[in-house]
């Protein structure tokens, strides 16, 4: 990205310093936006060794083939989206080089690599009431017996399409959402968390 272009989080008017200061003590949930994470949509045939070798060579990851699971590498994380599609998530700014490198490594193969970084944003939700709040708009069972380490899932939270990822047993869950839905999701979270208290943080 050119230095002259300023990136702006879709939540810039929600996650303000005033909102941070208005956060209650002992909040039931804490929302932490993680804007600008690199996000690449990758498609290809995981039964084709040439494809998986090339992806491993660039990302260091063996693409997960078990539905709704995550594979972590040093620089990148792969989330299963469907039998031939993954999100590759990495550090902010890493997307441009990675797209170029992947396209070179996969040249001649049947694949698709698309940078969707600017179309997505990420919210990290943590705190003791995380599952109670999400349960108000999500039909997935997020109990750790059903949704634990290494798992992700595409689903709906109050009509908004999200990818939920298990982070830790705080509990912390991560929501990837299209940036145009981020404001809606934030307002929904504020409402759903009203009875528990919602903190916002940088």
């Amino acid at each position, binding site marked *: 990205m050119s230095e002259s272009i300023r990136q702006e989080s879709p939540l810039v008017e929600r996650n303000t310093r005033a909102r941070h200061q208005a956060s209650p003590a002992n909040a039931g949930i804490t929302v932490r936006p993680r804007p600008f994470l690199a996000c690449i949509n990758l498609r290809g045939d995981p039964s084709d060794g040439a494809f998986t070798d090339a992806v491993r060579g660039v990302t260091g990851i063996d693409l997960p083939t078990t539905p709704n699971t995550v594979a972590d590498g040093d620089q990148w994380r792969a989330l299963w*989206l*469907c039998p031939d599609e993954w999100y590759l998530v990495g550090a902010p700014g890493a997307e441009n080089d990675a797209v170029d490198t992947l396209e070179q490594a996969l040249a001649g193969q049947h694949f698709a690599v698309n940078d969707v970084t600017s179309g997505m944003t990420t919210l990290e939700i943590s705190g003791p009431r995380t599952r109670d709040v999400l349960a108000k708009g999500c039909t997935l069972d997020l109990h750790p017996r059903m949704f634990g380490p290494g798992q992700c899932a*595409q689903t709906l939270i109050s009509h908004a399409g999200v990818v939920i990822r298990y982070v830790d047993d705080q509990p912390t869950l991560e929501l990837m959402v299209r940036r145009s839905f981020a404001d809606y999701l934030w307002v929904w979270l504020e409402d759903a968390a009203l009875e528990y208290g919602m903190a916002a943080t940088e």
Partner: protein
Amino acid sequence: MLYIKCPWCGWRDESEFGYGGEAHIKRPEDPDALSDAEWADYLFMRTNPRGSHRERWVHTAGCRRWFNAIRDTQTYEFKAFYKMGEEPPGGEQ
């Protein structure tokens, strides 16, 4: 609310799915060779059974794969879920 088993993602709520009508309807090899009545039969006529119905669903809010299911049209009970390209459990009807 129905509870539906995506062949990839497992049991999910009906709100994540879309319905695609009767399954296993084969597009005619050579539409130009058909009469209007035969083409209309392909396009519009469905078996509409009372009881076991083989039908298509798509996991719209999840993995976005199409798959097939067998559902009882009287009780709404699902009898089976199977991937596209797989034979219906219980064989041809």
